């Protein structure tokens, strides 16, 4: 096929998009070496993501340089893909925490996770579309974003690492379908390239939630 030939239209599906960023990965690689530390950390992260995504509908795992873009799919319920993505994020944070306790601190993994749900174009081991961009905007949010937000939490209350943020869409799904987590508003923000205000949430486990409580599938 020549470059002038039109590409076939990609499949459009509703999936949960997760963006995982490795905190200070460039700094760590520069300090301790890419081959000595950085490369192994990223590979460990890929392996852990594959493990937690297995059986949860993980269909795409793409490197973003210092993290990964993930897509979760549920053929029976698009909303459940968001629940599965959140499950995977918290299991990943749990495994990362255990790993960090067993390794020298320069090899520690610290993550920032963001989850959104929306229609995306499926291309080979990748996803395209504005909902993918929105997931990246969520992942970009930091303490420095909060003074510009409306109704923000105090910047010092915002965690520096190992947290999960989600969009209004995902927060609504979690509220309806799963009692294992609660969603806390961190404020209303304008996200670059997107019109209007977006309320952003931090997802935290409910301390009183029964372990393994099954989410409502419908």
């Amino acid at each position: 096929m020549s470059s002038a030939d039109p590409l076939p239209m990609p499949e459009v599906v509703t999936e949960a998009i997760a963006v995982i960023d490795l905190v200070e990965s460039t700094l760590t690689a520069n300090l301790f070496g890419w081959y000595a530390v950085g490369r192994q950390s990223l590979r460990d992260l890929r392996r852990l993501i594959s493990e937690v995504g297995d059986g949860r509908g993980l269909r795409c795992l793409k490197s973003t340089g210092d993290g990964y873009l993930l897509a979760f799919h549920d053929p029976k319920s698009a909303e459940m893909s968001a629940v599965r993505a959140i499950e995977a994020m918290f299991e990943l944070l749990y495994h990362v925490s255990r790993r960090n306790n067993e390794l020298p601190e320069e090899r520690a993994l610290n993550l920032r996770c963001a989850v959104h749900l929306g229609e995306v174009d499926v291309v080979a081991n990748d996803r395209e579309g504005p909902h993918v961009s929105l997931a990246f905007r969520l992942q970009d949010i930091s303490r420095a974003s909060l003074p510009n937000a409306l109704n923000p939490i105090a910047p010092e209350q915002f965690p520096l690492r190992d947290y999960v943020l989600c969009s209004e869409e995902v927060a609504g799904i979690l509220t309806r379908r799963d009692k294992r987590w609660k969603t806390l508003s961190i404020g209303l923000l304008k996200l670059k390239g997107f019109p209007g205000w977006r309320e952003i949430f931090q997802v935290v486990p409910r301390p009183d939630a029964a372990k393994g409580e099954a989410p409502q599938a419908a």
Partner: protein
Amino acid sequence: MTVRQPEATESAGLRRRLALFFCDLAGTWRLLAEDGDLATASVLRAFFEHAERLGKAHHCEVIKFSGDGFLAALEEITEALPLARAIQALLTEVPALAGRSLGFRFSLHSADVLCLDTTYGKDVFGDDVAVVAYLNDLARRGQIVITQAAFERLPVDQQVLATRHEIVQVKGEDVPIHRLRLVPPQESEA
């Protein structure tokens, strides 16, 4: 939406009835695409400098910039309309803003909000802050969307300028609003 402010429940004394005024600079995405980020940054810098100056001149208690707009909280709601007119005039008075197909959209609400000194400055909190921000999306260029609560507190000579009354939905709730034009329709649609 429930605002997550742990201090809020213990701060009844910091609750105040204020006019919440939101102003958004429309046309910045097109400016960014056509003229680039440097030009956009200089436009926003000029806008923020003048908005801050005008906010002080109109006795704003709080002025907070966010994206390409700002939220102001005023003790005296009668200052809101003159403030909007002064901001609107920047489009012709300030060279950095003139001739760039920009416009201003305004919204005005009146509510009890929590006023706090935070680590980044004075700020206001409450679900009504979100209401005035969401309502701003409904305003056309050169227009103010005014909630019924704010409308009732405006002096009669300002009330009579409002031309329309309607009910809109904000986050699934009915909100009665009025609309008030600061510029003729043909200019606001430009």
